[in-house]
């Protein structure tokens, strides 16, 4: 049960049950879609960028608890952040869930997002946690192509992902 309770933490279940910022943004400056064809999870991320500051961020989609909660918590974490801060958080989050050794993991810098650290023990689910974040990354890049976190295994490399 240890592994499971690490994976399905209270905060994750809460965001799954009541996703925050689950809506479209009229006149969004950036939109990108994440879609994992093998499992069917989908997340569309909407951004309202005002002078490189995320004035508003939202998402819509369907998927498992991990992907929905991850998208929801991402929107909460990023509202009001600058583009650079958002990219930095994306990198940190990615390193945390994949357990990338080349980057020190500082859970305190991730705040509530640290709830996803347990997912490292469930390699096949890493792609779920990453989906909305990779859509965000594409949105910030102005990439309109649908991105996936499925190519090349349970967690594709960053470059492969963002090239969609």
């Amino acid at each position, binding site marked *: 049960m240890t592994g*499971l309770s690490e994976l399905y933490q209270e905060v994750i279940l809460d965001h799954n049950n009541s996703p925050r910022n689950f809506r479209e943004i009229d006149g969004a400056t950036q939109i990108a879609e994440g879609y994992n064809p093998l499992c069917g999870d989908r997340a569309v991320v909407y951004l309202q960028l005002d002078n490189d500051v995320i004035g508003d961020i939202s998402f819509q989609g369907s998927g*498992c608890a991990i992907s929905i909660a991850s998208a929801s918590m991402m929107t909460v974490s990023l509202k009001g952040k600058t583009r650079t801060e958002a990219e930095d958080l994306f990198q940190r989050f990615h390193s945390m869930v994949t357990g990338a050794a080349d980057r020190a993991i500082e859970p305190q810098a991730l705040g509530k997002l640290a709830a996803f650290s347990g997912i490292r023990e469930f390699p096949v689910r890493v792609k*779920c946690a990453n989906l909305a974040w990779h859509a965000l990354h594409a949105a910030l890049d102005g990439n309109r192509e649908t991105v996936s976190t499925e190519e090349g295994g349970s967690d594709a490399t960053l470059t492969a992902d963002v090239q969609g």
Partner: protein
Amino acid sequence: MTQAGNTIMQTVRPDRSTRFDVEEVRRDFPILREKVRGKPLVYLDNAATSQKPQVVIETLQKYYSRENANIHRGIHFLSERATQAYEDARAKVGGFLNAAESREIIFVRGTTEGINLVAQSYGRKFIGEEDEIILSAMEHHSNIVPWQILCEQVGARLRIIPMNDDGELLIDEYERLLSDRTKVVAVTHLSNALGTINPIKQIIQIAHRHGVPVLVDGAQAVPHLKVDVRNLDCDFYAFSGHKLYGPTGVGVLYGKASLLDAMPPYQGGGDMIRSVTFEKTLYNVLPYKFEAGTPNIAGGIGLGAAIDYLSQVGLDLVAAYERELLDYATDVVSTITGVQIIGTAKEKAGILSFVLEGVHAHDVGTILDQEGIAIRTGHHCAMPVMQRFGVPATARASLAFYNTKEEVDALVGAIHKVKRVFGR
């Protein structure tokens, strides 16, 4: 060269007993003694691939240890013996399906390749612009996409037999779809996502009244039902070895000899020719015309061993036991509050697809996996079925004759655990 000829091997041996003993058959499958995540393996993903009995594993080992050689070419001892073993396996498959002749049995990589072969060989020769291909709403992607590719190539189009809320095809609607534009009907015998057994004999009779040939996707049916291609009068029947307790990478396309003879080769290469010059190549006879290149020799022989094994256990006994087990599983799983069974046809086998209210199938799958229970979650390569039932994914427990009521009880316990984790 040993020709497949007209010999059909008798595969029906006396049953080991007239009673089915699940504990006895479980001992034949070494993997069932494995523990996963510290718990006894409960393998309920048989529709994805089945486990292999010891005799199949030993057959592969024996082949590579003592018999390996290329077939249909060598004049040496080993080649002759390997050729004989491979052609014996073909004859066993012919007997298993009750085909009229061994040359109607084409070894392929699996069901998918069998369907692609028919779409590209039969389809490109006999199907043209404005022609129609009838599929059903419950097809696996492997019986959709090859036909879509053909449609793009020749300008034909697909017509789809709808189904009701239980997952049963609407035969009246099917009859209305048939016209003189219809050139082929391709339907699954047993739905991988719903478990529905389709009235395939009736479907074939109706098509034949319009002079239309029928391809049956038998990937899920062969492990659970006795299939008699002559009684069904089907024109093509495709299945995979690995779902029938045999190795991966080998499968079978049965085709009526008259149809196969009229079809051009699917792939070119060695073994499928009679003579080659740069000006002209003469093709080999059936079945070799469709078997270019060195085939999966060990796989074919392993599949023959699997068919022998299944015949010894007794497919009738297997079917009866699985029916009882599915009924039990349906009863106990459907009484869990929040569970909805997807696929409630009257005629079903082997498959229990369900959704749990408020919990995505992948989360169900992860939690069950922690209990050592292997199921499939997702769209089961049948996205149109998911769309028809308005669900993104289902959790699917699929049964084999080595599964037990105790394993079904473990599944029920684990579903309750999912509900606890999600506070449902």
